C-alpha cells in the first residue's frame, strides 16, 4: 500500500444564509462541493503534484491532508493509519500529525513577526516534546538553519530581517523541525522571484533526497511541476480529471482541460 492514500475524498462547504433568512426568503440551502470524490496515492519518497486553477479545490485537499480541515466524506491514510480515525487517542493523533508538515504559500504571512527565528524553529520540538533542554534545542536549530542554507547566527533575528526566499527557507526549516515524513507544499514559490524560486525548488529536492521525504506539491504553475513532480494530478472544479506520470502528462495529455492548461502556459519558444 502506498504511503499516502486519499480515498473518495470530498469536502462540502455550507454557504447557506442563516436558517431564519432561508425560511423568510424560501431559498434552499446552498452547498459548495469544493472537492468531489478525489482518489490518489503517493509512494514513499516521491513527489505528487496537484495542479489546477483557482477554485479547483487544490488548497482544500492540502488542508485536509495536513489535518487542518476535516473531510466531509472519504478518508486519508498515512502509512496505513487513518487520519480521521475517531478511535485514536489524542497522543496517537499527535504522533501521526508530527509526521505531516506543511509549507505555506506566503512566507510573509506564515511566520510570526514577533518571534525570533530560533523560537519559530524550536516550537515544533517543544510542542511534540522531541528535544528537551535549551542547549540541545539551540543546537538542533543551528543544524536546521544550516540544512536550509542559512547560518546559525540567524536564529536570533526576526522574520522581517529576511528576504522572501530566505523566509521560505525558514518555513521549510520549521517544517523539518519535527522530523516529518510527508511535507505538503502549498504553492511554496508563487510569491517568489524566478531566480529565488529556482533556489527554493532545488533546496526542496535535495532535502527530499537527504531525508527520503514524501511531498504533496500544490501549484497552479505547470512549469514548476515539470521539474519537481514524479506524478501529477490535474484538478478541475473539485474533480480529479487526469492523473499521469510527469513526463507522460506533458507529452501525451489525455483530457481537453489538461491540453488547454498546457497550451495556455506561457512558453519561451520561438520555433512555433
Amino acid at each position, binding site marked *: 500500500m502506498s504511503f499516502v492514500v486519499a480515498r473518495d475524498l470530498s469536502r462540502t462547504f455550507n454557504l447557506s444564509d442563516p436558517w431564519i433568512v432561508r425560511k423568510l426568503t424560501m431559498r434552499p440551502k446552498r452547498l459548495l462541493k469544493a472537492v468531489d470524490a478525489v482518489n490518489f496515492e503517493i509512494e514513499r519518497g516521491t513527489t505528487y503534484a496537484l495542479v489546477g486553477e483557482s477554485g479547483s479545490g487544490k488548497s482544500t485537499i492540502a488542508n485536509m491532508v495536513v489535518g487542518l480541515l476535516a473531510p466531509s466524506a472519504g478518508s486519508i491514510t498515512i502509512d496505513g493509519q487513518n487520519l480521521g480515525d475517531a478511535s485514536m487517542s489524542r497522543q496517537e493523533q499527535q504522533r501521526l500529525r508530527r509526521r505531516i508538515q506543511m509549507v505555506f504559500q506566503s512566507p510573509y504571512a506564515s511566520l510570526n513577526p514577533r518571534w525570533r527565528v530560533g523560537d519559530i524553529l524550536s516550537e515544533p520540538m517543544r510542542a511534540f516534546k522531541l528535544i528537551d533542554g535549551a542547549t540541545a534545542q539551540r543546537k538542533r536549530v543551528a543544524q536546521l538553519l544550516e540544512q536550509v542554507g542559512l547560518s546559525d547566527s540567524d536564529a536570533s533575528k526576526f522574520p522581517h530581517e529576511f528576504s522572501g526566499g530566505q523566509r521560505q527557507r525558514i518555513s521549510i526549516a520549521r517544517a523539518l523541525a519535527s522530523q516529518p515524513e510527508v511535507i505538503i507544499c502549498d504553492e511554496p514559490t508563487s510569491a517568489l522571484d524566478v*531566480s529565488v524560486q*529556482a533556489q527554493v525548488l532545488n533546496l526542496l529536492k535535495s532535502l527530499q533526497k537527504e531525508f527520503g521525504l514524501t511531498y504533496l506539491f500544490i501549484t497552479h*504553475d505547470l*512549469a514548476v511541476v515539470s521539474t519537481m513532480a514524479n506524478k501529477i494530478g490535474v484538478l478541475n472544479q473539485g474533480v480529479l480529471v487526469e492523473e499521469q506520470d510527469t513526463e507522460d502528462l506533458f507529452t501525451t495529455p489525455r483530457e481537453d482541460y489538461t491540453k488547454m492548461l498546457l497550451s495556455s502556459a506561457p*512558453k519561451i519558444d520561438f520555433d512555433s
Partner: protein
Amino acid sequence: MTETLLELKGLEVTFTTRRGTLKAVDDLSLTVKRGEILGIVGESGAGKSMTGAAIIGLIDPPGRVSNGEIWFEQQRVDKNPESMRGRQVSMVFQDPLTSLNPLRTVGDQLVETILAHMDVTKAEALQRARDGLTEVGIDPDRINAYPHAFSGGMRQRVVIALALATEPQLVIADEPTTALDVSVQAQVLDLLKKLCRERGTSVILITHDMGVIAQTSDRIAVMYAGRLAEIGETREVLTNPQHPYTQGLMASTPSVDAKSFGQELFQIPGAMPKLDALPSGCAFNPRCSQAHARCQTDRPPILADRAACWLMENAS
C-alpha cells in the same frame, strides 16, 4: 516608418530615507517606438514598476524623478506629466480588484474617464463606453454592472477598456496578468496585444514572467537593481542572452517543454543586493561567475547597444 514615441534619457528615480538616498532607477535610457510592445522584465526591486510610474508621473514622495529626461512625441514631459496622463498615456495596473472603484458601475467609470479627457458629449461618451466593452469581449448590456459582478479576468478586461477608452498612444501595463489564472492570462494578453496592434498603440509591458514577455513583446529590456542590464529584440535576448544575469534568469526559469524532467534547475547564487548596499562597479558582479577585476571597480555602460557588461567589450 519606425518613429520614436517615448524616449527616456538617463532617468533616475531616488528615494530619500533616513539611511540616505536610494536610487530605485539609475541612469536608465531607452526608447519606445510607435506601435511597439516593449517588455520590461526584472525581479522584485529591479525598478521596473518605478520606471512605469515615472513615465506617467505617479511617483509619490519621498520618491522623485531626480535626474534625466522623459520625451514623449518630441516634447519633454517629465516636468508636467499631467499633460499627457490619461489622454495620451494610460495605465493598466496589476490587480483589477483594487484599480476599479467598487461603488460605481463600470459604465460610470468609463464615461467619467472619457469625459475627463476627451471633448465629447455625454451621449457620445456612453456610446464609446459601450463600444469599448464590446471590443474587449464584454456584453455592452452589462454597462450598469458593478465591478464585483465580474470575475478577475473580466475585470481586467474592463480595466483594459478603460485604458484604451481615450485612444492613448502608449499603454503602460504593470503586471497585468499576475493575479489571473494561466488560461485567463493567455486570453487577456492576446486581447491586449490584438487591440494595441489594431490601433498602433505602443505598450510597455512590465512583468517578472519571461514566458509572458516571450509571447507578447517585440523588444525587451532586462532590469537589475534599478539599472538596465540588457536590451534588444525579444527573440535575440531570450535565445542568445549576452548579460550573465539574463543568462542565469533564463536558465533558472522552469519550462513546460523542458526536455529534462525532474532535473535540478540552474540557480544564480546569492540574492539581488539591497539598494542601500549596492556593490561598486557592476551591480551583478558578486553573483556573476564571469566577473573579473574591472567589474568590481567600473560600472559598465550599455555596450554594443545590447548589454551593460564588460564582457561585451571583448566580444565586439
